[in-house]
């Protein structure tokens, strides 16, 4: 498991190497090919698109390491965004409204965690069911909300628009979470356990790890991160709508897999998730700046995903053959 120095071979074999390499290539192409890439507006929009997506992707990465995932995360963002703006519109103070948003995130995460961890429902089915329900609730609240289009208090808007030395608070927050998670996953005993549980649930149970509790906790964590992403987004754009977070579950899973995660669990890093997200955001930026019809973007992203998954499978197969496992 341990990296023996910084030999080139080791660096290349790290699972997030591929995504970091193609992200850098994409960055260079954008930086040299487009005049407006370094424009302040473009950099601002990149920051505010990367930060919330990365927060969600971090949560998804933790789940994927455990060998599960969450398809309800986009719906959770919509519900949190709409609920927080409803609370603010009805005169609730900013800290309480934000707390309420996090409460919803915790609640959805807890239910997901119970269904997957304790009841034992396949995460695909459980979180799709919850996605339907949360989405339905979000749209119901939305239909109550759309008559009043509230102006958020300035102390709330600052969460989304405030900057320190040209960097958005939300981007800094994302970096802090990245550092915490990286240390947690690499050097913390509990963090290492995620890999053991994801790698082999039965073996880790025999070692006395409580995988049920871990699954519930991590689902709550992704609920919290989704809530944070929703709050930053609505604070930045000044309103909540039902499209908030729509489809983000797929983008997050794709980013994580590009960044070295595997649906079978036991693999992945927070840094990989971040670079997966940066790659996806730069990709959108690429299509915008070079004025390629954005409809082609899905084709390219999907094809890259299939190639990455196939290449990962091929390499694993080759490794197992060398080890004589097959």
């Amino acid at each position, binding site marked *: 498991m341990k990296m023996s120095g910084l030999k080139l071979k080791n660096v290349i074999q790290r699972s997030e190497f591929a995504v970091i390499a193609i992200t850098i290539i994409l960055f260079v192409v954008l930086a040299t090919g487009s005049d407006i890439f370094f424009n302040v507006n473009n950099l601002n929009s990149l920051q505010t698109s990367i930060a919330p997506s990365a927060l969600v992707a971090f949560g998804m990465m933790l789940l994927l390491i455990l060998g599960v995932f969450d398809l309800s995360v986009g719906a959770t963002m919509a519900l949190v965004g709409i609920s927080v703006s409803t609370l603010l519109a009805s005169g609730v103070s900013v800290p309480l409204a934000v707390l309420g948003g996090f409460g919803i995130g915790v609640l959805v995460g807890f239910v997901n965690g119970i*269904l997957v961890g304790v*009841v*034992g*429902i*396949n995460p*695909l*089915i*459980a979180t*799709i*069911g*919850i*996605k*339907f*329900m*949360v*989405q*339905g*609730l979000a*749209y*119901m609240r939305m*239909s109550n909300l759309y008559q009043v289009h509230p102006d958020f208090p300035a102390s709330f808007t600052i969460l989304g628009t405030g900057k320190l030395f040209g960097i958005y608070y939300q981007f800094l927050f994302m970096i802090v979470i990245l550092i915490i998670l990286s240390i947690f996953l690499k050097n913390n005993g509990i963090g290492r356990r995620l890999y053991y549980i994801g790698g082999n649930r039965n073996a880790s149970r025999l070692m006395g790890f409580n995988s049920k509790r871990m699954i519930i906790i991590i689902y709550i964590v992704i609920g919290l991160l989704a809530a944070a992403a929703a709050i930053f987004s609505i604070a930045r754009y000044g309103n909540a709508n039902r499209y908030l977070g729509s489809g983000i579950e*797929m983008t997050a*899973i*794709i980013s994580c*897999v590009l960044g070295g995660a*595997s*649906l*079978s669990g036991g693999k992945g890093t927070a840094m990989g998730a971040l670079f997966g997200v940066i790659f996806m955001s730069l990709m959108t930026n690429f299509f915008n700046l070079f004025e390629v*019809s954005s*409809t*082609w*973007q*899905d*084709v*390219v*992203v*999907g*094809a890259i*995903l*299939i190639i990455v*998954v*196939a290449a*990962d*499978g*091929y390499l*694993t*197969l080759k490794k197992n053959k060398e080890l004589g496992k097959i």
Partner: protein
Amino acid sequence: MSEYTGRTLSSDVGRRINFSSYSIYFLAIGLFLFLTFATNTFFSFENLYSISLDISIQFYAIVGFTLLLIMGEIDMSVGSVFGFSGALAGYLFVKSGLPFWIAFLLTVLLCAGVGLINGLVVVKFHVSSMMVTIGMMTVMAGFKAVLIGQLSSRVFTGDFRSFMRMKLGDIHWTIIALVILIVVFEILLLRSYKFKVFYFVGQNSETAKIYGIKSDRIRMMMFVMSAVTAGIGGVIAASRVAHAAATAGVGLEFTMITAAVLGGASLFGGKGSILRSAVGLFFLAMVTNGMVSFSVDPYIQQVVLGLILIIAVTVDIVFTRKSRA
């Protein structure tokens, strides 16, 4: 969990009623009776016919989807392929000026190619079918959007439009084909050795290989089957609305999963039948239909659908565990 799924074909079949195999019939009959007595609108020929017509279109996609679930694999690209095939057939018909049947055939062939790619990647590289087909879902959604952009809401006329409207006697052919396909597949899956092996492959494809079953080839064929049936369904759906809709097939994979799981299929493979998946679709259609007649807020309908899915699976798991103890 996979140890729970190997029950349907084990020696005690027949001695014990498998809850998950029959629950969908009870649910469907119960809801049918409830709606018949509780509403004035449900039990009329027109209403039941229109429900059947709706199902008969989605049904094509669920044939391949269920067969793939029996293999223990999943095809998340089914919705995108469904939408893509309608748009592609329309493009070939309107823009390339091909006769409808040629456009239809080419579209289905191309969908078969899409399924083959899914199958090859999953089987040859031993990777998760969910991941690969999410990739394919994204790719096909992209192609669909490109084609729809090209078509700029042109209306499909002539053969394309009348394809879905053809009738045998007074009944749309899609409904007749639905009944025939259900009967044929039910007989084949229960009686024919060639089809029974699907369940063995789904329970354990490696063991099946040892017994001389060509697991890999069967699994690959089912990926093709899933894309082909989704493609056929997509063309029929496009023929019905007579244009390429951007919403065609969106979220269809979730309807398929819900219906198939209600019908007793398992994501771990080895379980499921075409008939029960079709009843699952019918059940979902009745739920929507019933809620409309009770004028339930459409958003609560979503909440109810999610709740049904989770309760169905939880009950199934609880019962399976009990029967093991």
